[in-house]
């Protein structure tokens, strides 16, 4: 059976979807990706859908699911390179992918993830400091 490769790049996981996603493949991807996040302790997931030209509500839901699951496991999801037609279709279907970060291309997506990761690390530090303050 076909599988979509998941690449590990530092603290991030990189997925490029280069074939049309059918339901079973999407479910396998969701499963594989979450397992990968859990195994590697990745802090960010970047999904490139620049070559996907057809999208349906199921695929939109899977993307949303991946983001929600990753968030619970402390990893942010960025979907990059969505084509105009796909964006319009998703909006018409009422799937605005709340909670998923988006970027124009892989480069900008990586930049966004780096920023988010930086912010989170700082936040973590601050929280610890706050706790220290409270303990004093």
């Amino acid at each position, binding site marked *: 059976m076909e599988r979509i490769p998941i690449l590990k790049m530092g603290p991030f996981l990189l997925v490029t979807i280069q074939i049309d996603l059918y339901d079973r493949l999407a479910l396998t991807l969701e499963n594989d990706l979450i397992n990968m996040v859990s195994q590697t302790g990745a802090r960010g997931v970047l999904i490139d859908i620049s070559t996907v030209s057809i999208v349906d509500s199921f695929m939109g839901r899977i993307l949303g699911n991946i983001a929600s699951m990753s968030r619970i496991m402390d990893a942010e999801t960025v*979907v990059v390179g*969505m084509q*105009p037609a796909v*964006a319009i279709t998703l909006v018409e279907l009422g799937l605005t992918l709340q909670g998923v970060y988006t970027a*124009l291309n892989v480069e*900008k997506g990586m930049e966004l993830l780096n920023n988010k990761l930086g912010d989170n690390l700082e936040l973590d530090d601050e929280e610890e400091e706050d706790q220290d303050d409270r303990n004093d």
Partner: protein
Amino acid sequence: MNTTAQVLEKNKERILEKWMQNQLSDASLRDDLMTNDELQRQSKEMLDGLLRAVAKGNYNNIYDTEFEQVTDTLRDISITRARQGFSPRETGAYVLSLKQSVIEVLVEQRKDDTSMLYQEIMQLNNLLDNLSILTFETFIKGREEVILRQTDEISEISTPVIRVWDGILALPIIGTLDSARTQVVMENLLQEIVNTGSNIAILDISGVPAVDSLVAQHLIKTVSATRLMGAECIISGIRAEIAQTIVHLGIDLSNIKTKASLASALHLAFSMTNLEVRRTERHKGPKLMR
């Protein structure tokens, strides 16, 4: 050839003369749009065709072959008049004044035979009414063509996507937003985002006369689609009355960035992309540049 047709044929010149008189005496005649000679020529052509059809004894179906010439001429006249900007009354008066003159002539000729006159008037009345309906249909069709063409032109010219800065696009929307236009606006904007690789799109609605829940829905859709592409969308140009309507309608724009003017939206866009605009101090210090 029946007797009615004979009578009409014999008095053709008189009918034409009366008809022309009727048309010329009409206060609403637009001799600025059409010369009298042309009117005379058109009317003669039309009357010839009509008499030929009446000679065949057809009073009912104007879609038969013998009426082809009449209906063609009439359609031609109506369409031309619609394009030239004649009013419906002026166009309709053309056929209706023919009816009047034909009936006048018939009344003169049939003083002694009222039952015949009655029958003839009924038939011609019916026929000319059908012709005037045809005139109106064609006239309205002509006007609708004009309107359709204008609508197409408006929707084509009114959705330019402007690159105001590196990575910042602006889209001034002028006129009402309906579903079809939103689609065009959205497609243009998203395509331009891909082409230029822009991060921020400013949607300026100062040219939108009114915002109802449908328009707001369209705006929200556009913003969502932009966000899915990976760009931020700012809505600017929200006037006081539009803000009032939005709140009164209970539309939630809280998760969309809105600004009152394009300038402040641009300002926000600059700060989002970590850009800063500063005034240069020209008069201080030595001029090193030259």
